[in-house]
């Protein structure tokens, strides 16, 4: 596990960066915006917005078809975007394909594995059968749970999960103990969107591969916030979303390691992904094109690549260090409050730049309303992780999540308002 030895962003640098994000100057509720919901969706810098605008106004055309100059320019931009995004996550360009979002990418992996079970496409290496097991954690986002529930249901495989403790944290040892010869897929979040727990990926990959299982990583909360190298981690598949990493909405990324990408059948078929088609048969292009049926949102992909350029220019190690410090500040501040229950790793333990809390006697939606009245955009609800919340004994938590543009003062303001929530609602 890497530790944040990198120098965090200085206050001055954060203020400079904030000037790149027009929305941070908005006052949606008539008070200055304190945006602490980047875990749900991040804000976009001018540079990413302008790159997308420039593409739409100067280079827009269908890619990988047509002989005109504009189509060639658009194709250059499109493939350059793929290369930059691939490099950003330690992948080869052929290992990167597009999805609508991370949910779509994770669904694609599960659907493709289901496709491997079809009579016409049975791949003994990938097909799942009764007695096989799919392993997840109790803390998963629904996006990395429901596709596996359905795949298990369709193939007769059994869905298993490692349980979390009272804080919502699972241990690597407990997960490793559940990996057996029957395990075919291990699907886990790199960073939990609720608890901020950071998974130790390397030992899990080693054990899964030794057992002949694939590892699928939900990297939604890791790729935007810390340096991630999929090839170094050794995962077989991974997914992340553009809108959580300064890019536009509607585009997600699916990483399929070379071997899996070559073997996996596509979930969707159609235009732009074939070599030859007859009335009864078709031959697929190699990855990544075989996973990209139909026209892709090229301008959005260009926008995402510009967001990646922006993140790289700032420096992912510095962003990580900045956010880890803010996560610790949130955790320590919340944990010190009377009758506020911090979810996830204890203060001082490793956590990402987010924290979720349960306010004793006040529903999260009421807490969120008071925060909102002070301009603080925090997330309240189950964060698409109902099983985790059920285990925590609550329907909803209140979450603050940081990004590179978040300041210490904003975190402190959140903590200040949070500390007054119980009194405001007269909680006993």
């Amino acid at each position, binding site marked *: 596990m890497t530790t944040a030895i990198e120098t965090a962003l200085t206050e001055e640098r954060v203020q400079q960066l904030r000037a790149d994000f027009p929305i941070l100057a908005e006052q949606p509720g008539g008070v200055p915006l304190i945006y602490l919901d980047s875990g749900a969706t991040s804000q976009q810098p001018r540079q990413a917005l302008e790159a997308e605008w420039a593409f739409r106004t100067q280079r827009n055309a269908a890619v990988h078809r047509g002989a005109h100059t504009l189509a060639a320019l658009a194709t250059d931009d499109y493939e350059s975007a793929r290369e930059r995004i691939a490099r950003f996550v330690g992948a080869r360009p052929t290992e990167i394909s597009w999805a609508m979002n991370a949910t779509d990418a994770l669904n694609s992996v599960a659907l493709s594995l289901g496709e491997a079970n079809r009579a016409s496409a049975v791949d003994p290496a990938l097909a799942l059968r009764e007695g096989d097991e799919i392993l997840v954690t109790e803390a998963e986002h629904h996006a990395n749970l429901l596709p596996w529930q359905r795949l298990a249901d369709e193939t007769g495989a059994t869905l298993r999960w490692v349980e979390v403790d009272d804080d919502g944290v699972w241990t690597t040892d407990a997960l490793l103990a559940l990996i057996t010869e029957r395990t075919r897929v291990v699907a886990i979040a790199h960073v939990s969107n609720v608890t901020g727990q950071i998974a130790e990926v390397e030992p899990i990959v080693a054990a899964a591969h030794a057992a002949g299982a694939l590892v699928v990583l939900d990297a939604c909360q890791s790729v935007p916030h810390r340096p991630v190298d999929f090839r170094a981690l050794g995962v077989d598949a991974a997914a992340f979303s553009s809108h959580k990493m300064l890019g536009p909405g509607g585009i997600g990324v699916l990483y399929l390691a070379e071997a899996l990408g070559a073997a996996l059948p596509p979930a969707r078929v159609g235009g732009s992904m074939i070599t030859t088609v007859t009335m009864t048969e078709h031959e697929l292009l190699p990855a990544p094109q075989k996973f990209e049926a139909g026209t892709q949102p090229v301008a959005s992909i260009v926008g995402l690549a510009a967001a990646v350029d922006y993140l790289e220019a700032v420096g992912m190690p510095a962003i990580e260090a900045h956010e880890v410090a803010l996560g610790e500040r949130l955790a320590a501040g919340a944990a010190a409050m009377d009758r506020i229950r911090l979810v996830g790793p204890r203060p001082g333990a490793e956590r990402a730049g987010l924290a979720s809390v349960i306010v004793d006697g*006040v*529903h*999260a*939606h*009421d807490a969120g*309303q*008071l925060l909102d*009245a*002070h301009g603080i955009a925090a997330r*309240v*609800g*189950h964060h698409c992780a109902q099983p985790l*919340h059920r285990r925590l004994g609550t*329907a*909803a938590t209140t979450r603050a999540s940081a990004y590179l543009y978040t300041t210490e003062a904003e975190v402190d303001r959140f903590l200040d308002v949070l500390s007054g929530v119980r009194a405001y*609602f*007269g909680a006993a």
Partner: protein
Amino acid sequence: MADPLAGLYQELILEHAKLRSGEGEIDPFDAERHLKNPTCGDEVTLRVRLSETHGEARVDALGWIGQGCSISQASASVLAEQAPGLAVAAVRERIEAMRELLRSRGAVEPDEALLGDAVAFAGVAKFPMRVKCAMLAWVALEEALDELDRH
């Protein structure tokens, strides 16, 4: 700083959120509805029993159990104080008036003669994300009455 949420969290709402009038299961009952607000996890299970006097159906008793934000729980409590004794047609009229008020974004003047204490929820109209919270128990009752109408 003036309370920025005074329009939303009226004293009466915070009181009802703690009072929880009508909380509990009634038995026997004629219809039961369980409703959830998936965005925030508010839940209410509401039971209603009707009686008939002079050929007119009335709400005889209403009980609910639930969990959720103060708005959703308080509105269930207010409903449980108001509905028993009212004719079904009058209950439906109140539910419709409540819906119209809450969806108005503040454009509709609350009818205190019709809605009684429920006018305290008028402030919710300016917080569109909370309208579903305030309507949860009321919609549960409406659907329970719809179900009885079909029989």
